[in-house]
């Protein structure tokens, strides 16, 4: 009966995901604790052209935003498609997880996830080429994220070579 009742209180959009930051300084338990108290969200799948202003406008719909840190390519120091949004109150971040996660910004479905808290250095992509890891290996063409993935750019797919 209590399992059924817990379904009545379900709040799955607010749950912490499986992702854990591999560069986190501390053990899993500490990371979990921070994630469960955090007021900061990681936002992914942004266009490289999405501005801080656009992020602020959208995420302000769930509450007062304390600060936004746009993710940067480590080499180029230009936006590379992610950011952090920190709220003054966790409740407002929870609303963002429930109602802004999975909706569109700049025509792209964005994804939000709990973050343990911004630390200097975390604003940089961790891919080899300087951007995000996901842009290293992807095969598709995404004009808002620099075109093809970095690997695909160096080694274009076989088919394109066989043109007669």
């Amino acid at each position, binding site marked *: 009966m209590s399992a059924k009742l817990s379904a009545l209180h379900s709040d799955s959009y607010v749950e912490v995901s499986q992702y854990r930051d591999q560069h986190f300084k501390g053990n899993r338990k500490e990371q979990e604790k921070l994630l469960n108290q955090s007021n900061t969200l990681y936002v992914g799948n942004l266009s490289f052209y999405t501005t801080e202003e656009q992020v602020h406008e959208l995420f302000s719909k769930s509450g007062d935003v304390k600060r936004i840190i746009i993710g940067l390519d480590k080499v180029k120091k230009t936006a590379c498609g992610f950011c952090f949004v920190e709220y003054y109150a966790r409740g407002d971040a929870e609303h963002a997880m429930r109602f802004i996660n999975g909706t569109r*910004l700049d025509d792209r479905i964005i994804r939000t996830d709990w973050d343990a808290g911004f630390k200097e250095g975390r604003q940089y992509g961790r891919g080899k080429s300087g951007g995000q890891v996901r842009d290293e290996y992807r095969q598709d063409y995404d004009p808002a994220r620099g075109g093809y993935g970095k690997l695909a750019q160096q080694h274009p797919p076989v088919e394109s070579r066989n043109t007669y």
Partner: protein
Amino acid sequence: MQKVARLLPEKLTVYTTLVGLLNARNYNFGGEFVEAMIRQLKETLKNNLYNEAVYLVRFLSDLVNCHVIAAPSMVAMFENFVSVTQEEDVPQVRSDWFVYVVLSCLPWVGKELYEKKDVEMDRLLSQIEGYLKRRVKTHVQMLQVWTAEKPHPQEEYLDCLWAQIQKLKKDRWQERHILRPYIAFDSVLCEALQHNLPPFTPPGHMPDAQYPMPRVVFRMFDYTDAPEGPVMPGSHSVERFVIEENLHCIIKTHWKERKTCAAQLLSYPGKNKIPLNYHIVEVIFGELFQLPTPPHIDVLYTTLLIELCKLQPGSLPQVLAQATEMLYMRLDTMNTTCIDRLINWFSHHLSNFQFRWSWDDWADCLTVDLEKPKPKFVKEVLEKSMRLSYHQRIVDIVPPTFSVLIPAEPIFIYKYLDETASTLPGYQLSITLGNAIKNRATNEEILTILKEVPNPNQEDDDDEGESFNPLKIDVFLQTLLHLAAKSFSHSFSALAKFHEILKTLADSDEGKLHTLKVIYEVWRNHPQMIAVLVDKMIRTQIVDCAAVANWLFSQDMAHEFTRLYIWEILHSTIRKMNKHVQKIQKELEEAKDKLEKQQLKRDMDKNSEDEDGQLEEQIERLQEKVESAQSEQKNLFLVIFQRFIMLLTEHLVRCETGSVDISTPWYKNCVDRLQQIFLMHHVTIQQYMGTLENLLFTAELDHHILAVYQQFCALQL
């Protein structure tokens, strides 16, 4: 089971049937269950959870249909509830609630109660009718979404329910919409022994009781709007009441899980007999536009509608488009607060669908004065849409004829931009300052440069040039913000780096006002930037809340007075003030608790009194802080109300002397904005009623302005 009764009211007949069957098997179970529910009802009422209490009473009344509770004892409970209307000196909202509970149960149990106790029920209804006739309804106007009666009157909720119950009675209590599983089990249930409800005396009125606020029934569709398929039940049909109740309950239950919520709404039982999409859209907009505030956060409704569109891509988007069109058509009589919410909803919704819209359909808005509601609405929607995208996008999505409504490109306006500004008094200094800042000069070096700025206000600088110097503020702020114009983060960094200087420059009331003036001058094409800078400046105490209020109401900002961003800034400012007071009050409570615990411990451990002394000092300081903050908060509201009264009085007098109609778009906007202050911050404002009545909203005031205040007072009577 009781939890389920409270939490899943839309499915109550399923669970009452279950209880009925269990009771038929085991009489004691039924008795214990009923007793437990009565206990829970008492608890719920004690804790001011009136909305939940309604579901509990409804559950109990449906148990009559399942032969668990004897009809006469239910009637007796209802009689006790209705007798509250005889109480004297109680808030109207108290007796309202008890009448509402009784009426709202009748769709479920009216038939059964009437069959068993028609004389008593007639008496009950007659008492209710008398009460409803006596009721004061000053509050209704303030809660209506539209001022017009056509096409759908915005009925007061009790009046509407009464009409629905009257109609139900005329139809001899035949109600066909509610799913009643217990009918299938009648042969088993009718053998069961029933229980009598213990006599239930409604708890007396307590001064800190918070009864639900009155509301207005939102209607935007009727049977003419759904072109094919099942017909929409009439506005006074009991089916309409039940459907709306259940849909509201589904949202209340599943609001945190939008996919589940959408799925539950769309799988509403009996959906084949009603135009469900229309009901859903009407209920959702009803919540979004509810005054004073929606039951849930605004953005929930945007996202829920998107989920519904995903699940019903072939039908729901069309209903939504039809609804949007209808709302646009009726903008002229829509409450300004509701228009705000419509603007925010529509622009956010469009941003999820590539801003696709048939703008040409709205070309009529270009033929009227641009201050009228329709073109104003489109203008604000385009402005909000631009914030979610970028200027060129907006230019691309509207027809060229709409260019007059397109927002300005959000670029910085720098007074000292180039040599054409060389005749301006601050020009040379702006260059010096700019270079200094770029070369990472220290605060001392900057201050030295600033000492050179002449003060246009004074002949002789008697002191160190510390008094209010508008030119200093102008040159420094313009130059700094120009260098930092690239993004919000750049501007925030600049404000942080030169916080001390800015605080010093803005040290007086005039200084604060002028600072805000300069921010407006440079960023007047970028209202979003103005808002975030003002926010930051309040949080870092460069300006205070009263300064912001005075600035927004100043003559310099009069031409912007009807723009949405002005009111967003004002309400955000008030909220910050409120949160600040709450924060310090909390700190004080925590310190007091700590002291209490410490004193208890001391009595047991015989520890030193030093720790107590320190804590007592801290409490005293916090107490002062709280009083100071509360005083600041009260002052903020007084300033705002005073300014409204001044502006409105001026307008009314001017119109009277010129024999001109007072109802200009500006006037309607201003009155709605005054109402909005009351509605959005009613909890805080309740504390000041005495001062407001004695100082500001006195009998000498023009009755147009006084009416707003009186309607507000009527909300809690």
